[in-house]
């Protein structure tokens, strides 16, 4: 969902690459309507690539055709999107190598003055 917003970094700034992550899982209620709504907004390939890096391998490589009503798929998507939290780590922009540090689950998106 995030892309690099450093000034002048317009191309190839998505997805941010996660490094040195510590994951935590928190159970959340499954909300199918919400997931269906999110389906259209997701860059699915980027999500799968990110998940593979984080060792979450249950997402299928392509989006199933009946995604909106495939309970099994929605369950997996739900797990990846809402139950997996990155507690500490770094997000690195693939283009300009800007590093956003994540502490206590809060990414620091502040930019230095020359980057605005």
């Amino acid at each position, binding site marked *: 969902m995030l892309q690099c917003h450093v000034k002048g970094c317009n191309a190839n700034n998505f997805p941010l690459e996660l490094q040195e992550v510590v994951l935590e899982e928190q159970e959340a209620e499954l909300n199918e309507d919400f997931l269906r709504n999110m389906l259209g*907004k997701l860059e699915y390939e980027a999500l799968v690539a990110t998940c593979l890096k984080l060792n979450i391998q249950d997402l299928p490589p392509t989006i199933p055709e009946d995604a909106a009503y495939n309970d099994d798929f929605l369950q997996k998507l739900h797990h990846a999107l809402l139950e997996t939290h990155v507690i500490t780590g770094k997000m690195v922009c693939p283009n300009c190598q800007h590093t956003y540090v994540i502490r206590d689950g809060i990414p620091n*998106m502040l930019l230095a003055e020359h980057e*605005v």
Partner: protein
Amino acid sequence: MSRPEHLAPPEIIYGGDEAKKYTANSRIAAIQAEMAGRALELLNLPEGFPGYILDIGCGSGLSGEVLEEAGHIWVGFDIAPAMLEVALEQEASGDLFLQDAGQGMAFRPGTFDGCISISVLQWLCNADKASHHPKQRLQRFFSTLYSSLRRGARAIFQFYPENDDQIQLIMGVAVRCGFEGGLVVDYPNSKKAKKFYLCLFAGQEVPGMQQQLPRGLGEEEMGEPQEGGVSYTSKKRTGRVSSNKRRPLKDKNWVLKKKEQARLKGEKTASDSRYTARKRRPQF
């Protein structure tokens, strides 16, 4: 009215103890929750639809609680780390970011179904550092916000404008970034309950369909003039413009009227001519 934005930048005002005090204060919490509820109402999302909402300046997640109760999934960012720590302690349900609204936001285009922000915009109008230009920061803020919203989504900002110029500045920048919409003022006649909500629409969901700006609360009696009420037109007043000069009471019309009356009585009267009631020259 106290204006904390004049004292120091937000990350300092809401740092350390102040963040805890702010959240523990039940009066502030109640006001925040009420405003968040009203903002959510203005967002006008379909009933029972769990949206993905952005909360700008989420602080300790007071307004997020309202969103959560309504069944929405929210993401919040704030510039004050201390406030975010409090939010973590309170186990806020949304994802949190440490971010400066004036630097723009890094969300993918079309991510959010709506956006609320409680008491934030007035902070953006201040320059806390030498490198801050309020107008540029607003511009960056609104343009990145516009792209991160779904087409037809609304963004509701509750804020405390200092003066009309500030409203003009904010609205001007927002319109330039592509937003439609306007200002909704709740309880415009009350000094204390008066609340400003900037209600912006990011494009149109169905092209060509204009969204209606919602009505503010407590201004029913102020709407369009009703039937039989006073209608205002821009018609100019006809007749002579009143001046300070005294007009003579016995002018030509008065003389003609008197002569007519005399004729009706059968009195001997001079006939009317162009000399009748004409002004005499001074040397006469």
